[in-house]
Each structure stands twice: as C-alpha cells, then as structure tokens.
C-alpha cells in the first residue's frame, strides 16, 4: 500500500527535499516581505535611545556554528551604534568565537572606512578578545574592564588604548548589547550583570534560546530581543539593510513550510494506517 510505503520512506529522501528547498531560493530569491515584530523593534529602539557618542559594551558570545544567525545581528548592531558615533568595546566569552567576531567587526569597519568615515581600532572600537571562566569573568569585569582584559585581541595593553580612557567598569556603559549562542550568554549576563550592576541590556540570540528569554523581556531585564535569523532579518529591514539574514528568509520560509507539512503528513499517514489496521 502506498501509505505504508510512505511511512517507511528512507529518510535520505527527506534530507534531499530539505536540501533543495533551501538551495533553490538561495539561487533564485523570491523576495518575500519581512515585517518587523515587537521584540525586534524594542531592540532597535533601545539602541536608538542610547546617547549619541557614548561607549557601549558588546559581548559577542558565540562560535562559528551560530554565525549564520548571529553574525548578521552583530554586524547590524555595529552599524546602528557607529551611525550614532558610539564607541564599541567588544568582548567574547566563547572559546571558538574571538576570531569570527573580529572578522565581523573589521568587515563593518571597512565599510565605514570605504565611505570615508575614519574608524580607528583602539579609538572608536576595540575587540578585547576571549576569556575563559564564564560567569566569573562577568563579575571580574564589574571590578574593572581593563583588569579583566589586560590585553586586547591584537595583544595591545588595554589601559593604553584611547577608547579605554573613559572605561572603568560597567558604570561606564549606558547599555550592554549581548549576542548570545547559549552558555555563557544572555542568561548569565542577566543573572550576574544586568541586575547586579544595573546595566540595561538587549539580547540577540539563537532561535533555540529565544523562547527562554521571553520572560526576561517581559520583566524588563532585557530591553529588546532578536531571536534567530528571522529576528536578524527583521532588524536588517528596520535598518534598511539587505544582509545575509534577509536573503536567507526565503529559504527559511520554504523549509519551515515543508517541516510543517511533514508533521501533518506524518500524522495523517499514521492515523490512516491505524484506522486501516483497526478495521482489517
């Protein structure tokens, strides 16, 4: 019977369909309209409300595995901050991440330089690089950013960098922008820093962890939330950019639709077979 054949289908056929559904819209985009949702607007507006020219802490806690979701957020956030002439101090608490984060920063900084905005590493922004120790590092930073990160990603002494002249501890920043792939990340920043050092924060996170952070958004512990690639795409739309996240949304839509179909079809096949089995 056809249905029972469908139920025992080799899963590699399903892999193939998903692969094609993702591949085809990447080659021939449909350009579905992306409409920003409330948490994304809140994220955008919270950053917009930072006083122009202030120094912002941005912790990019992810590694290459999550770059499709998180690198677009990092880049768009940097653009929003630099458009406001903010200075950005970047830290990384994931062991695989410092170099991919560095590449994102330099990519965006080069865009500005190409447009004649002379962003200088160490003056307008700095990547303080990686530290192991998760929550312990966050609390150490509360006693002094420079002493928790004595040298930056390039090995320069942090206290000698012009950008660090106005940076002492968390009180030097009006806001923390956290881009988070899991542990350590947004949850730990909320627990150890947001309440303990009263530092307002926004979070861009992977879609997996987004539902867990909605309670923090509701409670005001987070001022805004970008969840996954869809969140990143909506943020790009708000900023009138057309980045990697937006161009991935067609493929994302197709795959979601197919998986939804899989759930429905799987159950229909199952129930039909059960009914057939019961009547036989």
């Amino acid at each position, binding site marked *: 019977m056809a249905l029972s054949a469908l139920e025992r289908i080799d899963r590699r056929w399903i892999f193939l369909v998903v692969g094609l559904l993702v591949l085809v819209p*990447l080659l021939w985009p449909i350009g579905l309209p992306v409409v920003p949702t409330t948490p994304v607007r809140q994220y955008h507006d919270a950053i917009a409300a930072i006083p122009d020219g202030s120094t912002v802490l941005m912790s990019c806690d992810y590694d290459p595995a999550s770059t*499709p979701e998180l690198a677009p957020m990092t880049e768009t956030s940097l653009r929003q901050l630099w458009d406001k002439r903010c200075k950005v101090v970047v830290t990384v608490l994931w*062991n*695989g991440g410092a170099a991919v984060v560095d590449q994102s920063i330099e990519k965006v900084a080069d865009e500005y330089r190409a447009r004649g905005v002379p962003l200088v590493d160490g003056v307008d922004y700095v990547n303080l690089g990686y530290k192991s120790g998760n929550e312990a590092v966050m609390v150490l930073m509360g006693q002094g950013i420079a002493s928790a990160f004595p040298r930056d990603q390039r090995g320069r002494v942090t206290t000698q960098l012009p950008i660090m002249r106005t940076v002492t501890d968390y009180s030097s920043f009006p806001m923390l922008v956290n881009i988070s792939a899991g542990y350590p990340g947004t949850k730990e920043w909320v627990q150890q820093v947001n309440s303990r050092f009263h530092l307002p924060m926004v979070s861009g996170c992977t879609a997996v962890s987004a*539902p867990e952070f909605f*309670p923090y958004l509701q409670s005001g*512990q987070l001022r805004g939330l970008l969840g996954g690639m869809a969140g990143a795409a909506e943020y790009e739309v708000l900023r009138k950019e057309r980045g990697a996240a937006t*161009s991935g949304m067609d493929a994302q839509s197709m795959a979601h639709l197919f998986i939804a179909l899989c759930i429905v079809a799987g159950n229909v096949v199952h129930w039909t077979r059960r009914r057939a089995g019961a009547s036989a």
Partner: protein
Amino acid sequence: MTISTDFGVWIAALLTLCVFSFLYKDNPLYKFAEHLFVGVSAGYYIALNYWTVVDQYLVIPLRAAFDGSQAGGPFQAQMQDYRGWLIVPAVLGVLLFTRLFTRLSWMSRWSLAVVMGVFAGLKTTGFAQGDLVAQVQASLVPLWIPGDLWGSLNAILFTVGLVTSLLFFFYSREHKGVLGGVSRVGVWFLMISFGAGYGYTVMSRISLLIGRFQFLLVDWLHVR
C-alpha cells in the same frame, strides 16, 4: 560561475562536504573530518587559553611582581592587583594535571574545590536574583486594567499559567482532586511552550543549514 581558486576555501568546502556525507551514512570521510575537528579544536583551545588567560592573568603579572619594579613588594596586594599571590592559582592549575596519574589524582581535587566553590557561590546568588526574585517580582501585575479588557484577560491568563505550571512541579501531594485539575491545566501551558520551543528550534537549525549553503554557493562556487 567561476569556482574559487583559493586553496583554503577548497579545503573548507571539502571538509564541509565530508561532514555532510554523514547524512548518507556514517563513513570514513565523516570520521576523518570528525577526528580532525576534535584534534584541531583541542589544540586551538589550548593555545587560546594560554595566550588570553594564563599569559595575561598569570605569567605577565607574576613576572612583574618578582622583578622588583613594583612599589610595596611582591605581596602588597590590593583589589585586582594580586601580584605574588597569583602563585596560588598557578599551583592549583598545575595540580589539575595530577588527574592524569591515578595515584596522585586526589590532589586535583583542591583545584576543583576552588572552581566548584566559586561557581556555587556565583550561581546561587545569580539564579536567586535574576531568575527567582526578579522573575517573581515581574509577575506581580494588576489583573484588571481599567479600559483594557484584552490586556486584563491576558494578565489573568498569564497568572493562571504561571501558578498552574508551578504547581505541576509540586511533589508533596498526589495529583488528585483540585491539585490534579490544576496541574493538568499546567501541563497545557507547558505543552504550548514546548510547541513554541519546537518551532524556534526548527528555525535555528534551518538557519545553520542556510549559512553553510551560502558559504558553498558564494565563497566556493562564486554563484551570485
């Protein structure tokens, strides 16, 4: 369409395909990539942690503490400037390696004890403030907002959901009678939240696949 001529991009693309080959079945190409990955990441993490933590937190300050350049001597410690006292974590770090030798491995417990103590202290207060008190505090909301029926209904729904879900995890009574009914409502809320979690997890995983395809198409095959 002109394929990349960068050797590195080719290596990256081939390794990507080796990993994808697991989808067909577990095979030598996948195993090769997996083992290479484990080795390279272990090596990378060691180098990273040496230069970013051990060198900066330990080697440089200790050298400065004992070369006589700092006023007050090597043990004149103050907040964030621990000088010679950093010998203690250095010893603890080295003791960790006794784990490799069965007969000495008990010494590594001292190092573990420090880490466990610090994290127990940090996590206990972090969760108590951020996840317990702050979350409960944010749940204290007016159940009736004059002039906003929709908002009031949502606030009531939210409170019911929170209380029933909390009582689902209550073990001191059998879940019968009223408590049984309450915990059943709690399960409904939990199931809705798991459904949302499912949807978001699907989104995450698909995004990662899109990211890899973008790499193969754009960086390797130079399509578009």
